[in-house]
C-alpha cells in the first residue's frame, strides 16, 4: 500500500504541457525535459551503451516531441509512456543502425551507473518513488523472467527472436514473459491506475 504522503503523478499536467508544446511553447517543453530527461536518457544509455550517443538521442527525442506534440493522443497512452516509447524506439533504431546487436546480446549488464546520479532537484519526487517500487518489484522477479523483459524492452526483440537468440524454447519465453507481466501488473496496480 502506498504511503499517504506520496506525490501523485501529474498526468493532467503532463497532457497540458504537451498541448502547450503543440502551440510552440518552449517553456512547456523545458518543463517536460525537467521531468523526464533523466529517465529518457537512462533508456537511451541502457539501449545504446554509449553516453554521447544517448545524449544526442535525447536531443532527437525532444525535437520529435516539439514537432509532433499535436499528434499526441491521450487515449493511447499517458505522456510519460508516450515519451518512453519514443526514446526507446529511436534508441533501438539507432542501435540497429550501429549494428551492435550481437554485442548487446551478451547478456544483461551489471554495470554500475553511479556516475550518472541525478543532480539536486533535477528529478521529481514521484519519479523517485516510482523507481523505488519498480526496483523492488523487479528484484522479486526471477532472473530468467527479467532477462526476457530486458531483451524485449531494451533490445527490441520479439519472443521468437529471444527464443532464437537464447536457445530457450518459444513456449518457455512466452511463459516467462507472461508471468513477469502479470506479477508487475499486480504489483504496480496503483501506478497503472494513475496512468490510465
Amino acid at each position, binding site marked *: 500500500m502506498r504511503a499517504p504522503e506520496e506525490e501523485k503523478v501529474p498526468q493532467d499536467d503532463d497532457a497540458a504541457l504537451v498541448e502547450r508544446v503543440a502551440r510552440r511553447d518552449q517553456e512547456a517543453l523545458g518543463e517536460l525535459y525537467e521531468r523526464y530527461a533523466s529517465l529518457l536518457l537512462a533508456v537511451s544509455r541502457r539501449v545504446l551503451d554509449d553516453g554521447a550517443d544517448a545524449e544526442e538521442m535525447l536531443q532527437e527525442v525532444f525535437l520529435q516531441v516539439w514537432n509532433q506534440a499535436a499528434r499526441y493522443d491521450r487515449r493511447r497512452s499517458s505522456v510519460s509512456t508516450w515519451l518512453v516509447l519514443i526514446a526507446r524506439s529511436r534508441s533501438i533504431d539507432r542501435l540497429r543502425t550501429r549494428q551492435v546487436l550481437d554485442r548487446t546480446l551478451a547478456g544483461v549488464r551489471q554495470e554500475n551507473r553511479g556516475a*550518472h546520479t541525478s543532480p539536486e532537484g533535477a528529478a521529481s519526487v514521484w519519479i523517485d518513488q516510482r523507481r523505488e517500487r519498480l526496483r523492488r518489484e523487479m528484484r522479486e522477479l526471477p532472473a530468467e523472467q527479467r532477462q526476457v523483459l530486458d531483451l524485449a524492452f531494451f533490445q*527490441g*526483440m520479439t519472443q521468437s527472436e529471444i527464443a532464437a537468440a537464447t536457445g530457450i524454447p518459444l513456449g518457455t519465453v512466452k511463459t516467462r514473459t507472461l508471468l513477469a507481466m502479470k506479477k508487475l501488473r499486480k504489483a504496480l496496480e496503483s501506478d497503472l491506475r494513475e496512468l490510465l
Partner: protein
Amino acid sequence: MSREAHREDEVVLEIVDALARGDAPSAGSTLERETTELWALLPYELEPAPPRPEVWEEIRGRLASSRVVPFPERRQAAPPPPARARRGGWGTSAMAAALAVCLLGLGYLLAKTEQQQTAIAELAARLAAADDRLAETSRARAQLDMITRVAQHVYPMHSTPTGSQRRPITGKVFVCGQHQQWYLNVQGLEAPPPGYDYCLWFETAAGMVLGGTMTVRDGVAELSAPSMPPGTKGFAVTLEKTGSHREKPQGDVLLLGEESISL
C-alpha cells in the same frame, strides 16, 4: 485456466511483441492500454541519467535554428533599399514588367507570323510562275525535238511587199515528211489591230486551206498541228478580220513560204 483467461494471455503476449517491435499503441482495449503503460514502466528501474546542462542548450539552439524568423523582425534588421520600399509595389512592378514582356513577345510573334505569311504567298506565286515556265519550256522542248529530230523539211517564209508591218517579219514552217506534223514559228509580228487576227493558210492544188489563227506573244507567234492537207506546197500568213468568212484569204498577205529545204 479458463478459455477466456487463456485468450487474454495470448492477447497480452501479442501486445508485448508489438511493443517490442516498436509498433505504436492503438486506442484499443483497456487490456492493451494497461499492458502498454506497464511496459513503459520497466525503464523506471534504471538509475536516472541526468543529462549535462549543455544538452538542453543544444536542444534550444536546434529549435531556434529551425524556427521561422517573423517577417517584421527581418525587415527591421535589414531596411529595404529605396527602390524596393514596399513589397507590394515591387510585386506590382514585377508583374507589370512581366506583362510588358509578354505583350512585346506577343507582338513580335504576330509580326513574325505576318512576315512568314507574306513570304509564303510570294513563294507560292513564284512557284506558280515557275510551273508556267516549266510548262512552256516543256512545250518548246517538244517542238525543238520535233524540229531537230523529226522534221524533214523547212519552209522559210518571207515578207510580201503588201505587208503592213513596220518591222521585218520572218517565219519558218517545219514539216515531218512521214506524219505531216508541222510547226510554224513567226518572229517580229506586232500585235494585230483590234478586230483582226493573224491566220495561216496551206497552199494546195485545190486552193488555200485555213491552217489556224495565231496568237502573238512578245512578237512571236507559234502554231502547230499533227497533220496538214495533202499536197501542200506552200504556206501564207494573212491578217484577217475577226469573224470573217475563212474559205479563202481576204486580207493582206504578210508572209509567204513556197520553197522547202530538206533537213
